[in-house]
């Protein structure tokens, strides 16, 4: 089976070859985008991601065999334009976590309650991260990308990936586990 890099190479002379990359990566990319900014916008972002990638494919770095980090990077930049959608999605995640019924099992109730509360707080805390830190954190936690892959995706050195991830983790650990007030202003860096 051809690598993504080989497909992109061939597509320079045979453009339609590029379509195979959609089949390989679209579902995973779409889910990542949906998780960040909601499904309502995800279809358009996915479409634009592949269109942009196709238009820029002559600049793909063929030292990487996989194009997935590259696609994540394009999608992430497009997500940044959807700040309102992302904020709304994270607020929804916070409220959804708050509204979920914790299973009433004596064997697991304590762990379930902790997880439930933790997820709810995380949704709130994510909104407090800078967009750069949030990008790194979610690509690491949700998509299991390596530091190098995240660096390729976001166009930053691996060392910067590491430092942003550490900062994000520290903020999440140190964030107060108290309910936010309704009128708190959330700033996106």
């Amino acid at each position, binding site marked *: 089976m051809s690598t993504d890099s080989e497909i992109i190479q061939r597509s320079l002379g045979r453009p*339609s070859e590029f379509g195979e990359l959609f089949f390989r990566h679209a579902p995973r990319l779409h889910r990542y985008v949906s*998780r960040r900014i909601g499904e309502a916008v995800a279809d358009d972002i996915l*479409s634009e991601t*592949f269109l942009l990638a196709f238009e820029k494919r002559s600049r793909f770095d063929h030292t990487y065999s996989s194009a997935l980090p590259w696609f994540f990077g394009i999608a992430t930049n497009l997500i940044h334009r959807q700040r309102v959608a992302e904020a709304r999605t994270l607020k929804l995640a916070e409220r959804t976590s708050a509204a979920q019924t914790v299973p009433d099992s004596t064997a697991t109730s304590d762990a379930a309650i902790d997880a439930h509360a933790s997820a709810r707080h995380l949704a709130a805390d994510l909104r407090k991260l800078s967009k750069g830190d949030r990008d790194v954190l979610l690509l690491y936690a*949700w998509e299991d990308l390596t530091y190098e892959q995240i660096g390729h995706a976001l166009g930053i050195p691996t060392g910067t990936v590491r430092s942003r991830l550490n900062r994000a983790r520290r903020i999440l650990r140190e964030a107060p586990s108290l309910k936010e007030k309704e009128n708190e202003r959330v700033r996106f860096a």
Partner: protein
Amino acid sequence: MNEFDSLKSLRNDVPERSVEELSPSYTALNRAMLAEERALARTAGASASAGSDSRRSWFRSHVTPKLAGWSAAAAVAVTLGVVAAQVLTPTAPAVAAEILREAADNTIKYSDLEVGEGQYLRVASEEYFPHGFPADTPPAGFEETYQSPYSTTSFMYIPADRDESWVWDRSGIVIDGKQFSEGEFLVAKRGLFYEDTSDGIAGDGTVKYEGNLTLDRLQELPTSSGKAAYEYVDSFYDGGSVSRAEDNLGRILGFLRVGTATAEQRVALYEAIALVPDVTSSPEVTLSDGRTAVGFSRTEANRQDQRTEILIDPSTGQFVGERTLSADGTADWEALFTYSVVDEAPTSKE
């Protein structure tokens, strides 16, 4: 549980969509690819009618229910983009033929003729032999004329209830004004006209399938995707031809020749054609009767580069013809089909 574990579970309710569900997001990419293919073709000087450089993608959406008449406007819910001349290999995305949706030009629209109870689907076919009667030695009495072009016609009447009697009215062969062979008038249930030479005869002659094998297999054709249909077709390959691809394409042709393939089956079969190795397509082929069709073709190296071409009416998605062409592009044989619904079948030769 650390913060990463919690983070992983956040937004876990978001499912991963299938590629089929995401096909609307493919449209813009597909158009861009096509535009660039066309630009490259123009630069290379290739003609669009040769279909040698542009590629478009197959897609599937919904299948229409049976509707009366050929009203394309009422019937269209199934559309397929035409696979252009770019070769598809089995290693190319097998899912491509079944999932991509194209909203561009040259789509094939599908509809079914509705055959009511007691009515018949009438398939009129005309075969043209431009090089005359295929024989190494001339038949007696036709020494001077057996290589003259000739044509034959036939009318197949297929009842709404496939288990009832089919009628096949075949004209004889007339070569250069002289009757070469008499016609035939055949009646058989389920289209089993030549029972003693029906499908399913094993190489040792000991196995005989009791029925119309092609029709029965067509009725079991998976229609969920072109990939499923292709795998089904491929499953019957038993080494009959040294070329598995030729054998499979021939089997797909056999299903189309039955004349009863529904719109849903035709979608699957055309998508399966796209998965046969080395198939190319032409968006506009002019038939000898003046109609235009979409053509899918394949050249077989084991037969001196003879090309088999399958012809489809883009306005109905109906199989309207086939032909074989020599390596130099000249037609060796052509068969064209037209379809209609009639209230009764003849009881004797017309």
